[in-house]
């Protein structure tokens, strides 16, 4: 109980976003404690999960960590629960290994299945169409119905949006809620994936998934060999010319390739939160080298772009450098950001050839 308080590493290390060293130390110590306390090794592969709670900010964790470690060392040693994970709604303690998870976030659904928590998921919302074996229901993440959610008797609910009293309502019903809004950086993806791993007893495979994503992204960017350097692009979110600047999550992925976003001057002060609506004549006059369509789902295609009045003379249109992105891949911040990067690399390859 007192080990956390006296631990110089935990006390001395200020909170940073990358606290992997601290976590490593804790992992080792957990293993040690596990050895000391119990005789039988846990059957769950995730018995080390309990201490990843220390991803919490150092200044506020001491009390929470203390309270959570107590039962960890006394009762549920076999699966490492309870655990405390950080979410947008604060530190959330999950008492036991969740076996009835509901995901109201299509991104979280993809993350959960990727890290191997799929069998623990009992229901996903009506937008969670990937992977296809996810148990899609009528539940809505935009207009959630508390009673409908509770009818599945969940022991963990993952959301991305609380329209009002969803979190409060679920907590009143005794159901832990993890809320993760859209990622702002690629690091957010890793953080959310790992937190879901911790929360569901899959932290090791979550970290493997993160490593795979990181390696894949690096390889894709390396393989493109700087072909994206300085190439201008326009990323269309909808036909009213809403777009994403370099500062957004998806803009950062284009940035990995060194590409230049034509939308950046439209939101220099960040007042549009990186999602300005561009003036049509500005888009055409900027004449970007490649046009990426994130709105194929809404009926846009290279043909509809070419058919727009005045757009036919643009270089990207005449040369055919219009990339039709999978609308889901281009709007979720889960493991499939690798596919997003692949699509960019593919478009760059075509651009350099043509």
């Amino acid at each position, binding site marked *: 109980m007192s080990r956390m308080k006296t631990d110089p590493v935990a006390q001395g290390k200020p909170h940073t976003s990358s606290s992997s060293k601290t976590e490593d130390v804790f992992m080792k110590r957990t293993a040690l404690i596990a050895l000391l306390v119990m005789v039988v090794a846990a059957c769950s592969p995730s018995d080390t999960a309990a201490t990843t709670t220390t991803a919490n900010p150092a200044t506020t964790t001491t009390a929470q960590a203390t309270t959570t470690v107590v039962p960890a060392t006394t009762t549920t040693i076999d699966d490492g629960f309870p655990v405390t994970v950080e979410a947008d709604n604060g530190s959330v303690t999950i008492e036991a290994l969740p076996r009835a998870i509901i995901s109201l976030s299509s991104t979280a659904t993809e993350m959960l299945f990727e890290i191997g928590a799929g069998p623990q998921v009992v229901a996903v919302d*009506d*937008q969670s169409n990937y992977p296809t074996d996810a148990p899609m229901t009528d539940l*809505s993440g*935009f*207009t959630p119905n508390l009673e409908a959610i509770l009818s599945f008797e969940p022991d963990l609910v993952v959301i991305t949006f609380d329209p009002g009293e969803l979190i409060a309502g679920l907590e009143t019903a005794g159901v832990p809620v993890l809320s993760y809004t859209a990622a702002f950086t690629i690091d957010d993806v890793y953080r959310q994936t790992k937190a879901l791993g911790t929360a569901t007893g899959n932290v090791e495979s979550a970290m493997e998934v993160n490593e795979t994503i990181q390696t894949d992204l690096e390889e894709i960017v390396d393989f493109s060999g700087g072909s994206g350097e300085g190439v201008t692009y326009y990323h269309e979110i*909808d*036909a*009213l*010319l*809403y777009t994403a600047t370099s500062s957004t999550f998806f803009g950062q992925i284009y940035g990995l390739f060194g590409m230049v976003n034509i*939308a950046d*001057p*439209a*939101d220099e002060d960040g007042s*549009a939160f990186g999602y*300005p*609506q*561009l*003036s*049509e*004549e*500005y888009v*055409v*006059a*900027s*004449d970007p080298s490649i046009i990426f369509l994130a709105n194929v*789902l*809404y*009926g846009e295609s290279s043909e509809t772009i070419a058919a*727009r*009045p*005045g*757009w*036919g*003379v*643009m270089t990207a249109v005449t040369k055919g450098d219009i990339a039709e992105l999978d609308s889901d891949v281009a709007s979720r911040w889960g493991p499939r950001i690798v596919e997003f990067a692949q699509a960019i690399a593919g478009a760059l390859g075509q651009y350099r050839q043509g």
Partner: protein
Amino acid sequence: MATPTVARPSRPGWVSLTAGVVSVVVVGVAGLLLGAAGIASSQVVRALLDALPFIEVDHGLTEIQLNVLFQIRAPRVVLGGMVGAILAVGGASYQGVFRNPLADPYLLGVAAGAGLGATVAFAVSGNADLLAPFAFVGGMAAVAVTYSLGRSVGGRTTTSLILAGVAVAAFATAIQTFVLQRNSETLRQVYSWILGQLVTVGWSDVLGLLPYALVASGVMLASRRILDVLSIGDEEAAALGVNVVRFRWVVVIAATLATAAAVSVSGLIGFVGIIVPHTIRLLFGVSYRVIVPLSLFFGAAFLMAADIVARTVVAPAELPIGVVTAFFGAPFFVMVLRSMRGPG
């Protein structure tokens, strides 16, 4: 407003007509000169001269810049003018035919009904060609219910009509929200459309709107005298030989058709239908023989000006034009109202 003032002119004077024409020309030219593409005004002028028959001027614009000017900017300016003219004349006609100064597409529930129709069109088909007919059916249904409700509840009082409009609008909005939630994939499109937009219009949109604009404006212009007669009262108008019921429906259908056609290309652009006619009424006279024709000019100029703001003030980003009309229109209207109250 319903009382005709004999002293006021019964047709637009030279001053007001000239002011209307000049404002349309000035704002229209400004609309062609200004934009986010960064084309110098002098080049625009030369390119415009060059486009005239038998004149050749070296403008030095690239092919892309020419496209921006003639395929994107020019149709947008023209369409903005047409939509503004239609919304303003439509608003004036509603006010005359219902003898209600507050009647406008919003307060009568027409906009909400048209919005519901458009939402259903988005949800059912996603086909943009169905927007106009669906919006028209929704708008007509809404105004019909509003009118009959208003009559059955409160006879002739203007408040009952407006209250009925508010109820109809709330009802239509409720259904619209329900449809949206059942089809959340259309939510973004509909939301963008509700905010109002003149993005990605081309000459085809202009040509598509033209017949509606001509027919509806023609009907409403032809009705301006009878609107004046109607302003005395239904019975008095009937005594003067006006078939009040038929006339009312003809004007309502024309105004609703025009409004629906306009909103189907531009989205719900508010305030034009109430600000423009009222400003004219306050400045130039209460006769519909003045208001209706002048609404055409000043409505066009107002919306073209609002669109210039929408596409330049945060350039190269863009504001929804509905936000601009509300933001600038509402205080402007209050200002005119206050300044005219004293001597009037």
